[in-house]
């Protein structure tokens, strides 16, 4: 009797040890993005996506990595939308043993983080419209959401058709994040026969009244806020309308429509507006919001970059499982490059980037075109995943 009891206890202990051993595997995913300042919405989207992807994997019991079942933890760091903020975050991640980073977002951030991520063998899955967001020199840097060179053309064609635009003025901050994307966006307008003028402003400007006077004297058919942070774009549009500007507002850059409308004063103030939606929002995509609420018991991030980073995060976790390691970033990168991306919510993805960056590490997904016409919010238009082949 005593022997049986002893055997039972021993078996239970072994089972507990095995289960405990399986549970003991845990690794961290970094979420890097601006969590302060005018671009906070974008950082919140990255943080929310990382937390969602981790919660989703953990709810399934964890990731099957090699012979282990691993739980995911998220470490989020504010990169402040600056190169030095992102570099500091990369160093922090390295010291915490992080091997996989979702984000960051802006061109200066990506520029600041890339070399450190590479040196510390960390995979970085970022989104920025920098001219050298990825490249053969940074084999561990992946990119999601192609820049305006890939998706700008159908948007400008639609703007010409809807609003008959012939001249455009792009306005952006005078740093790398602004100039990189503004020049590409201006090129897209020019290629479509729209005369274009580029205007820049000092990042941190809070009152755009003098710049608005300058814009009004140029009187373009469309003022494109490109990748101006949503907070800045909202003030600019509000002041443009207050000063009597009647033209169209465009945005060949990062999204932030909700915040822009809120600051500018609503759809009636913005009136005619077209913009790039990095994700085409349909019922399947919207379901992510409910899933977020039920998994994390909180409201999902407002910004649509959230969906994009969920897709990127899921692809990353799949690649970790396929590579069978959460310690060797190079092996995971190899698995990621050949991964067939088919997101349950966002659809089929394509790996592109060879033509633009010389490396095929950019994840392209179907996107949308948002439109407000005469104050009326029209349904988004779906455009298939752009290619650069």
């Amino acid at each position, binding site marked *: 009797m005593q022997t049986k009891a002893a055997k039972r206890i021993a078996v239970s202990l072994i089972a507990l040890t095995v289960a405990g051993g399986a549970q003991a595997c845990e690794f961290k995913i970094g979420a890097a993005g601006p969590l302060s300042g005018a671009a906070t919405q974008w950082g919140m989207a990255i943080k929310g996506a990382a937390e969602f992807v981790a919660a989703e994997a953990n709810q399934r019991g964890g990731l099957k990595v090699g012979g282990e079942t691993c739980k995911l933890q998220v470490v989020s760091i504010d990169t402040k939308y600056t190169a030095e903020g992102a570099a500091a975050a990369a160093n922090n991640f390295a010291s915490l043993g992080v091997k996989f980073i979702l984000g960051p977002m802006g061109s200066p951030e990506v520029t600041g983080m890339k070399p450190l991520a590479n040196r510390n063998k960390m995979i970085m899955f970022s989104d920025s419209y920098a001219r050298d967001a990825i490249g053969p020199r940074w084999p561990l840097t992946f990119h999601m959401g192609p820049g305006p060179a890939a998706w700008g053309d159908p948007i400008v064609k639609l703007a010409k058709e809807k609003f008959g635009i012939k001249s455009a003025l792009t306005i952006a901050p*005078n740093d790398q994040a602004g100039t990189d994307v503004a020049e590409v966006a201006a090129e897209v307008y020019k290629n479509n026969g729209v005369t274009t003028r580029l205007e820049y402003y000092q990042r941190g400007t809070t009152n755009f009244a003098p*710049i608005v006077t*300058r814009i009004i004297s140029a009187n373009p058919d469309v003022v494109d806020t490109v990748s101006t942070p949503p907070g800045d774009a*909202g003030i600019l549009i509000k002041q443009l309308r207050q000063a009597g500007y009647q033209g169209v507002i465009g945005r060949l850059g990062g999204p932030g429509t909700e915040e822009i409308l809120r600051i500018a004063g609503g759809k009636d103030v913005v009136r005619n507006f077209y913009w790039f939606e990095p994700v085409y929002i349909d019922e399947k995509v919207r379901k992510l919001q409910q899933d977020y609420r039920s998994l994390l018991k909180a409201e999902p991030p407002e910004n649509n970059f959230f969906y994009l980073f969920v897709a990127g995060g899921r692809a990353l976790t799949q690649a970790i499982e396929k590579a069978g390691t959460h310690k060797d970033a190079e092996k995971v990168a190899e698995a990621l490059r050949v991964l067939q991306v088919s997101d349950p919510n966002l659809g089929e993805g394509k790996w592109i980037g060879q033509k633009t960056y010389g490396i095929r590490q950019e994840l392209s997904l179907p996107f949308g075109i948002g439109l407000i016409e005469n104050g009326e919010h029209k349904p988004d238009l779906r455009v298939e995943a752009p290619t650069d082949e």
Partner: protein
Amino acid sequence: MVEIVSAGLIGLSLGAQYALLALGFTLIFGIIGVVNFAHGGFYLLGGYVAYACVSMAGLPYPVAVLAAALATAALGYLFELLLLERVIDDHLSTLILTLGFSLVITTGIVLVFGPDAPLFQFPVQGVVRFLGIIVPLANIIVFAICFAAIGVAYALIYRTNFGRSLRALSEDRAVAEALGIRARLMFPLAFALATGLAGMTGALVTPILSLTPHAGEPVLAASFLVVILGGLGSLGGATLAAFLVGMIEAYAAVYLGGSKGALMLFVLVLIVLLVRPTGLYGRTARGA
């Protein structure tokens, strides 16, 4: 012609806002000898108090502006009395304390209101048109209130016993105290006046621009620029410099663009400081 007049009006409007902010900033330095890094935080807090009064308590906007001024003045009073006063003679400690308090305000606002910009609109919409120039009514109202507030602040400082006591303390604290002026009573009041002005400016300006938890940072930078140009501690210098900065900013941005315009502003400030290192009306050292 339209551009010239428009830029001038924008410059005046910017100048009035900067003046109201800089007056409080320079007042604190001139009287207490503290460089208040929390000045932008009080501006921000003023904006959020007004927003909460209008959107959550349903109060009329003018009452919200008054509430914002009173709330920030009360907080400034308590901050000076309970914290700043303890380390008032240690410049490094006051610097760190005010900087820390600014971070506390910003983080507190993020926790309470979230990181996104709320919908906070000026209650008066519409524009005034004349000779092809369009000026938003909100800007005219804010300009008038700022101008009136500057007048009231001046009257308070130069025409009342309270102001005379403050100026006496700023001239020579030891002599002023020997004459019966109580610094421990006056300093918190001076701090409250300055933070109240910052809070009122926040309540007035944020609905015409935007209200975000980090709106205080550029305000601090602008206040710094103005008071350094005007001469730290000089009320007249700060007011003159505020309008000068407003005008240069407006004309440079209109004619040179937002990028070169910002550069021009700093170049001109550098030239002024090269010629007059103490600023337009600054003194070489504080008497207090």
